[in-house]
């Protein structure tokens, strides 16, 4: 049963036994399974589906597929809402909700439509001409223009659905499942090759589903269903319906957007809404078909003007009668079958208007039998009606096609005008692949460049996309392309191939008569300026008329790339699918050059819009980026730590106790580490095992300081420079054996440092016998720090002599910890980053938590305090230890930080030469200093500028900036580190810090506020 007014009683691929409810602009309507939103709207008599982009003109559906420029809607609601979806691509489901766009207050009555009357104010390029002065007002104009123009509204809340990515590899990727694509996949599949067949439609068959053509004596759609069923059974073939191939990249990498659940009210449990495929294909067959062009004539955008092929699809596939009385206007053969289909569907066909002087004879008998009037060598000059077509004005063009022969005009009433301006092969993907296109003057379109040599990748084009518009060519050449692609991928068929399909109508169509723009009624040399006969649209989505293009040509634009940007033709979400060729033709005509000389615009991915959800895939929310956890992470969590991301690591920032804010917690932690004992998780530091007889020589070249003299058992701090002489990383490296070192790096730079070491070893110094291996993950590190650190550690390793003489600063030892995990072996380094008595205890990572708990338990009597990265920063800044990336910014030399003593004069090392550049040796380079604000309670923010005078107002030249700024409980006040021009010589100077609209007075000091405990003396008890 059907209750929709324009639904045919029989035919089509819809299931009339089931009724689906949907809502368009708040009105409830009904359709059937097999419908698209577009076909269901037409069946319900909805003509007006949107307002145009710039002029807010009423618009209706023109196409039945992905080339639809007008029928853009906002689909679904709330977080699932998606703007700018083509109604022709929305598969109808029960409960679907869609809204029209770009209208206010309603689709039927839209205030923005005043733009159409004001159109003289909005010529091509009005954006550039009108609102550019005064520049200060541009943001005001822009806000208004953006509201008036623009398309749909994005969703306002988070999308609740999942999206996924999928990688796939195949021998042959076939794009498009029309007759050529199906034949290609069928023949490729029979070789045993891995085949992927992707098509944007829900059903395989492409044009066969809509055009009523027959193969092997039965409907083409039945043939398609048979091939589809065989392919579905084949294990080596993967069918991807509802999938758009969006991008074609180098090395036959293609991206596909699969609409997994867009045809459902909401995705099933665990199912993604969409999936972005990244396919690597050995061979590609593009069977992307061709798109029907409209003809450019006055008011060709009125609702009720549709493509002839689209009308056929609505009748044959969806059982929809798209009008009551039709006129067809064509410059090629394909309108004739459409006229007959219309007549058979009960639509009165008032006339077929044939632009050519000769109609194709083979259709004439049937046309006559159906009583359809044929007007040869005539043109539709203009369309009447506003929200719906009411009739057409017909006339005869002169031979050149640029003027109207007077006195032969005639009007015909109709509510449907079917246009067929010829076919444009869909070569977006081929062009993206890097292949050249070639203009074919006879067909009036671009075709793949001559020979496969023009293709830079392993790609073939078959079917209408290749200019083979006849069905038999599609089938035969499609099969050949599929077979050849599989062969080239290394797969050959054993035995005979499938039976070759034969099209019932094997005649090839006659060539079209390309007239790019039909002159308006009553005009010679017709200009379609809009003042006579109405606007003649070329790009319906971007609201670009023939007059706009001619204006651009008159204003001096010669390159189609410039015309495109100036007029915005081809810049909509449809990528100019219906407009590109007409635009080229009109521009070429205006410039009086052949079309190839104008060239074509560059096709760029994506072919069709890809949602951000699909691009992000599953990498959202907690999975946005890896979160690296140390072995002690669970303990930190249980202890209530607040975490800080450092690179991808999550490190404890501080451990607030009940009632403590961050400042209080950091003060308590900083104090404990200098008065008793603190414990920090230092696992995240990069660790690199360096082995080989040349290891010391290697380090000598990598670091600024010398390494050959370091004794086994010793540790040394090192600075690494880039080739530019600027500090790149730092850390302590220990000598484990004669040819064996353990390097540590900063947390965030660990991977880069290993890459750096490897790149020098592999490319510049292959003669050095050294292996570098990351051991960051192997070791858990607990840093014990404070005056009680030694006493505490002694309890855990009673056999180790921890006295300063036996275990001095900057040495390491191995020791058994008898009480920990049954006698754990640890590497203990007497190094630290706080300037306090410190031991960094390394154990295999799996034992980290055990070690940590043992230290916490044994330290209870000293009120051991776990501390986070913020307290660590305070402690290190108190003693003037720098952090790479905080005090340095890639333009900092060792001398700038007062670390000139770290730079060896005796040997060569990476970056050395750059240190003697005049700029590296300037006396006024920014240098590390300390800062104490006059107000000891005031903490200036990091990044604050140092200024010469007391006036903080910009503009003025900064003298430097604050790099680190803290409150120190150990100093009883705030303090800061800064980079200050010529800072080494300015200690004691008064300076100001621009902060909060004030000039904060401060004193420059040495960058050290406490002396580090480097050697033996235990603090007074």
């Amino acid at each position, binding site marked *: 049963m059907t209750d929709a007014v324009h639904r045919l009683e029989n035919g089509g691929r819809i299931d009339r036994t089931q009724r689906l409810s949907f809502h368009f602009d708040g009105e409830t309507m009904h359709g059937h399974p097999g419908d698209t939103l577009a076909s269901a709207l037409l069946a319900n008599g909805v003509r007006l589906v949107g307002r145009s982009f710039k002029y807010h003109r009423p618009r209706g559906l023109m196409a039945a597929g992905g080339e639809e420029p007008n029928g853009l809607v906002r689909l679904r609601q709330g977080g699932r809402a998606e703007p700018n979806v083509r109604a022709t691509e929305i598969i109808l489901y029960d409960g679907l909700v869609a809204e029209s766009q770009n209208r206010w207050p309603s689709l039927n009555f839209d205030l923005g439509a005043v733009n159409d009357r004001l159109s003289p104010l909005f010529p091509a390029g009005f954006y550039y001409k009108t609102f550019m002065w005064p520049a200060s007002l541009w943001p005001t104009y822009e806000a208004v223009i953006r509201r008036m123009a623009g398309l749909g509204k994005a969703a306002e809340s988070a999308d609740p659905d*999942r999206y996924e990515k999928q990688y796939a590899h195949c021998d042959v990727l076939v794009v498009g499942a029309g007759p050529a694509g199906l034949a290609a996949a069928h023949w490729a599949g029979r070789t045993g090759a891995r085949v992927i067949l992707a098509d944007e439609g829900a059903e395989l068959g492409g044009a066969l589903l809509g055009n009523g053509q027959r193969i092997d004596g039965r409907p083409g759609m039945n043939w398609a269903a048979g091939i589809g069923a065989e392919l579905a059974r084949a294990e080596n073939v993967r069918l991807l319906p509802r999938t758009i191939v969006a991008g074609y990249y180098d090395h036959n990498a293609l991206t596909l957007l699969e609409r997994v659940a867009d045809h459902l009210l909401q995705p099933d449990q665990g199912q993604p809404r969409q999936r972005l495929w990244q396919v690597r294909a050995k061979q590609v067959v593009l069977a992307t078909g061709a798109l029907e062009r409209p003809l450019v004539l006055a008011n060709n955008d009125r609702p009720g003007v549709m493509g002839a092929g689209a009308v056929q699809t609505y009748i044959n596939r969806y059982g929809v009668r798209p009008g009551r009385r039709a006129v067809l206007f064509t410059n090629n053969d394909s309108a004739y079958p459409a006229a007959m289909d219309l007549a058979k569907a009960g639509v009165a066909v008032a006339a077929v208007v044939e632009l050519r002087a000769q109609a194709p004879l083979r259709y004439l008998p049937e046309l006559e039998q159906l009583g359809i009037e044929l007007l040869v060598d005539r043109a539709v000059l203009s369309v009447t009606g506003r929200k719906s077509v009411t009739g057409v004005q017909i006339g005869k063009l002169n031979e050149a096609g640029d003027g109207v022969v007077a006195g032969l005009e005639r009007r015909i009433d109709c509510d449907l005008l079917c246009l067929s301006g010829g076919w444009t092969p869909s070569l977006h993907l081929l062009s993206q692949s890097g292949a050249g296109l070639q203009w074919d003057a006879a067909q009036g379109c671009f075709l793949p460049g001559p020979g496969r040599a023009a293709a830079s990748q392993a790609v073939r084009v078959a079917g209408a996309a290749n200019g083979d518009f006849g069905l038999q060519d599609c089938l035969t050449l499609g099969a050949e392309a599929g077979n050849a692609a599989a062969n080239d991928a290394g797969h050959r068929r054993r035995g005979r191939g499938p039976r070759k399909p034969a099209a019932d109508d094997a005649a090839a169509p006659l060539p079209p008569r390309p007239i790019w723009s039909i002159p308006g009624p009553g005009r010679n040399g017709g200009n379609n300026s809009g003042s006579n006969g109405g606007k003649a649209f070329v790009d319906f989505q971007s609201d670009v008329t023939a007059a706009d293009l001619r204006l651009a040509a008159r204003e001096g634009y010669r390159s189609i790339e410039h015309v495109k940007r100036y007029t915005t033709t081809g810049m909509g979400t449809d990528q100019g699918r219906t407009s590109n060729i007409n635009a080229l033709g009109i521009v070429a005509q205006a410039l009086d050059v052949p079309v190839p000389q104008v060239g074509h615009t560059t096709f760029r991915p994506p072919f069709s819009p890809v949602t951000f959800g699909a691009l992000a895939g599953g990498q959202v929310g907690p999975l946005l980026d890896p979160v690296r956890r140390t*072995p002690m992470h669970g303990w930190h969590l249980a202890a209530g730590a607040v975490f800080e991301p450092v690179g991808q690591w999550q490190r404890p920032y501080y451990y607030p106790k009940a009632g403590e804010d961050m400042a209080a917690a950091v003060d308590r932690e900083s104090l404990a580490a200098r008065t008793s004992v603190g414990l920090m998780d230092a696992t995240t530091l990069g660790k690199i095992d360096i082995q080989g007889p040349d290891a010391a020589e290697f380090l000598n070249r990598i670091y600024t300081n010398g390494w050959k003299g370091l004794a086994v058992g010793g540790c040394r701090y090192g600075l690494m420079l880039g080739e530019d002489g600027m500090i790149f990383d730092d850390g302590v490296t220990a000598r484990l054996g004669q040819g064996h070192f353990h390097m540590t790096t900063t947390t965030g730079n660990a991977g880069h440092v290993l890459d750096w070491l490897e790149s020098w070893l592999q490319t510049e110094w292959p003669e050095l016998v050294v292996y570098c291996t990351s051991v960051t*993950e192997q070791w858990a590190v607990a840093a014990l720090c404070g005056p009680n650190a030694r006493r505490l550690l002694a309890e855990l390793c009673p056999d180790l002599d921890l006295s300063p003489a036996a275990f001095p600063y900057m040495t390491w030892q191995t020791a058994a910890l008898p009480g920990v995990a049954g006698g754990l072996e640890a590497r203990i380094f007497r190094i630290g980053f706080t300037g306090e008595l410190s031991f960094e205890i390394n154990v295999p990572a799996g034992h980290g938590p055990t070690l940590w708990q043992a230290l916490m338990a044994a330290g209870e009597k000293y009120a051991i305090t776990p501390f986070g990265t913020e307290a660590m920063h305070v402690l290190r800044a108190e003693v003037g230890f720098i952090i790479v990336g905080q005090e340095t910014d890639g333009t900092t030399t060792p001398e700038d930080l007062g670390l000139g003593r770290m730079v060896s004069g005796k040997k060569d090392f990476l970056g050395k030469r750059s240190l003697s550049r005049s700029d590296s040796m300037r006396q006024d380079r920014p240098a590390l200093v300390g800062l104490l604000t006059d107000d000891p309670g005031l903490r200036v923010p990091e990044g604050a500028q140092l200024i010469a005078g007391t006036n903080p107002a910009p503009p003025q030249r900064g003298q430097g900036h604050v790099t680190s700024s803290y409150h120190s409980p150990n100093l009883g006040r705030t303090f800061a580190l800064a980079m200050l021009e010529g800072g080494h010589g300015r200690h004691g100077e008064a300076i100001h810090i621009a902060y909060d609209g004030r000039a904060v007075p401060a004193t420059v000091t040495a960058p050290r506020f406490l002396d580090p405990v480097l050697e033996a003396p235990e603090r007074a008890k």
Partner: protein
Amino acid sequence: MTGPRHQPLAHLALAAAREAPRPDAGVTLRALPYQPSIILRGESGDAAFVKAFRAGLGFDLPLAPNHVSSHDEITALWLGPSEWLILGDVGPVAPAGQGRLARALAGRHHAIISQGDGRQIIAVSGPRARDVLGKLCPLDLESPDLAPGHCARSILARCGILLHPQPGGAYHLHVARSFADYAWRVLAEAGLEFGVAIASGD
């Protein structure tokens, strides 16, 4: 003997154990327990080194890229022209030179570096294991180059993995310890479509 190690995924396995079993699950995830392993560095072209390895462990190091060989509970995975991962107990690494492998290689330029604590192996099995991995790993999982007996380094979403195909369409994924939680979560998320089961034990 030292006490038991903390497993990087202990927190997730515990949570998973509370869930009802999924007999219909398309993919099963399992966190393998600690296994000793080392990184072995040495030159493929150094015949004496290759020979010494064979003398020490009784089988040939895989010299062809991305190949795996094993013998007597020791498995060697090719990671690079001078780098292998050796799974299994080849003797203590420290003090240097004391282990079975180290003694065999004494006098040849080589390096042995402990790795067992630094990695987690996640076993991915079940009828949809390959489909799940295909959502996260860009390699051609159907390629004969990734049949059992091969291995490859790649990525799993945004973290590095060593992929070690197993018989029966299962995979062992080696991930760095700190990434184990992330790797487990992305696998569990990618498997939602097919149903995910968590297996316990080894």
